[in-house]
């Protein structure tokens, strides 16, 4: 005889199943509709927000349907499976060792042959590494010099040379050596300071004619362009890791991770009144490297 409770349970279960089937079917049909709509949107020329949303509904509908199917209708278990120990018997292990050994009666000079084989493979390995050398040019003196030469005119990215009148006091510009506006290592920031407030650091007398002072724009920390200038404090600011350089004090770093000042470019004006470099930077520009101070 069946207890009334059990009948109730069976009825509830069947109702639950019915509900699950209904929701799963809804999930799948919503998905199908979304896919069709997606095709239409695409056919009509596409629209990113609609595409993403419809794709999400198309995928999500099946996801919901399958998820409900798994959790409501499929065998739930819990099932138990035994877990055998991972390792084999000692006999198996011994036999594996023997199989590895391979040759139970090696020739007398097997060790010697193995050493020779090792040497040959090692030499081959070394030889095979050499194509890596083809990947790049020899660093040589690349990092120690830029395209600035004595007399090279400082031009803007557009190639325009500068006279005294092209920059007001307090203004700044990014300049390149004429003919090398693509030379990333030569980018220099020129700031026009009030002649009264600026004093040449020792050894750099005459590098900043009429208050035009030039510093390498490449941060000495990790090489970002030192692109921000705060006129009130006369500070250059690197937006990548927040190093701060004091313009009035030879671009010495005052905060942030940079350890070295921005190298200064000696500037002058040529006979036609154009701003020129009077030489290259006297030290490598940009981030540090192992033998930076070797000269």
């Amino acid at each position: 005889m069946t207890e009334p409770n059990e009948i109730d349970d069976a009825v509830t279960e069947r109702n639950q199943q019915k509900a699950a089937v209904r929701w799963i079917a809804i999930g799948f049909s919503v998905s199908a509709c979304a896919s069709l709509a997606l095709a239409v949107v695409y056919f009509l020329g596409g629209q990113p927000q609609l595409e993403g949303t419809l794709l999400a509904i198309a995928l999500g509908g099946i996801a919901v349907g399958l998820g409900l199917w798994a959790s409501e209708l499929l065998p739930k278990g819990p099932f138990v499976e035994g877990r055998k120990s991972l390792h084999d018997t000692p006999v198996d292990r011994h036999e594996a060792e023997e199989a590895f050994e391979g040759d139970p009666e090696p020739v007398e000079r097997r060790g010697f042959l193995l050493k020779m084989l090792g040497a040959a493979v090692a030499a081959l390995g070394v030889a095979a590494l050499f194509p890596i050398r083809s990947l790049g040019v020899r660093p040589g003196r690349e990092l120690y010099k830029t395209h600035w030469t004595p007399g090279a005119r400082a031009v803007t990215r557009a190639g325009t040379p500068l006279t005294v009148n092209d920059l007001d006091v307090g203004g700044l510009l990014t300049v390149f050596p004429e003919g090398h506006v693509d030379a990333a290592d030569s980018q220099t920031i020129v700031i026009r300071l009030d002649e009264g407030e600026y004093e040449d650091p020792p050894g750099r007398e005459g590098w900043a004619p009429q208050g035009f002072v030039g510093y390498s724009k490449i941060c000495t920390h990790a090489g970002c362009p030192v692109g921000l200038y705060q006129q009130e404090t006369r500070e250059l600011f690197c937006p990548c890791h927040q190093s701060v350089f004091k313009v009035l004090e030879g671009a010495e770093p005052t905060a942030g991770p940079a350890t070295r000042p921005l190298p200064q470019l000696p500037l002058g004006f040529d006979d036609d009144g154009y701003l020129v470099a009077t030489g290259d930077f006297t030290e490598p520009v940009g981030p540090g490297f192992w033998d930076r101070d070797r000269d």
Partner: protein
Amino acid sequence: MIKRFVRGMDERLGASSFARQALNKVFPDHWSFMIGEIALYAFVILVLTGVFLSLFFEGSTGEVVYQGSYEPLQGVEVSQAYNSVMELSFDVRAGLVMRQIHHWAALLFIAAMVVHLCRIFFTGAFRKPREINWIIGVTLLLLGIFNGFTGYSLPDDLLSGTGLRIAHSIALSVPLVGTWTAFLAFGGEFPAEDIIGRLLVVHIMIVPAAIGGLIAAHLAILWRQKHTDFPAPGRTETNVVGSKLWPTYAAKSVSLFLAVFAVTALLGGLVQINPVWLYGPFRPEQVSSPAQPDWYMGWVEGALRLMPAWELRAFGFEIPNPFYPAVLLPGITFLLLYAWPFLEARFTKDLEPHHLLNRARDHPARTALGAATLTFYTVLFFAASNDLIAKLLEVRVETVTTIYRILVLGLPPVVGYVVFRLMKGLLASGAERFTQMPLSAVLHPRR
């Protein structure tokens, strides 16, 4: 039909008993075991969308004049790489959605791996016999981060160009071999023309192949060793309790895949990510500000920002400042990750195989160490936005940096100690749940 299929396969492959075993294989149902699957499925989404993108992307720095439909940049000289990404975003139907799904899936891929790693760590699932899978998993995380970086560097926009610039500087900072390493990897002094084409090969071929192969090995080993399980009545070291692979677990897992895909599709459709047209093409003398990398590089970026202006110089040689936060710290991080299962086995002298998991409280020291470590990297992560925080709070960046320097060293020990006391208390009180633990158990764990 099933009958004919099984017979056909059996007569050719003799696969019946394998199929029976495989289909009946039992998988535990705990939700936390799905996190690794989310990472797997994110990778599948990355491959699917990535194949589409690769059909349009051009890995070249050759200059062209942009003439696509995004007006503000029309007539501007850009690289072919940037041009093709712009074309994908504005002129290829469904291109933008594919790009954005790809990027969101990449963020999710690495996030899921990190959470999965935490799950494995805090439950002791890495213990013998699962050290090999731990090593493979850590390698997958490393490759995932690396490929994320190479991926967002490809469009040759102003933000990613800045990232490459920093990467070049970091390579330069390595003692002795740094200059050669940077010149060989990039092809010369920054910005070398070869780099985008090389990144493309690495990003779409070498690393994905490695990730795919390692995932296969990860799963094969998991299949062989079977899942771990949380201790509960009826669960022992010699059994696995849960759903059968077929049909329940398979349906659940496919459902999860589609759900993950749906979420990334929704994000890709509705939430803008990496708008390269706003950053503009890369110019070596320009920089976008503020400049933050993708989230998984945040800890390195934060470390670069917090590192004091200090470096080693001796005998005319130097080890530049970026080396310590950007080479040494990640190096130590991954070395310790790789070594952890062996270090813990040595400290605890526990060389036995384990299939039942720990709860966090079972190993207060491990849990405390993990929490302290996570705190350390979380502080670094937030330090990567010190400039934004300074702007928001209207204080000097230096002030924010100083506070972070204190936090990054001070907070981990505090968090570690607090977690240690909590775990001890939880263990001693015998409370099932955290919220049921009496406060006295924390204050006096020994009583």
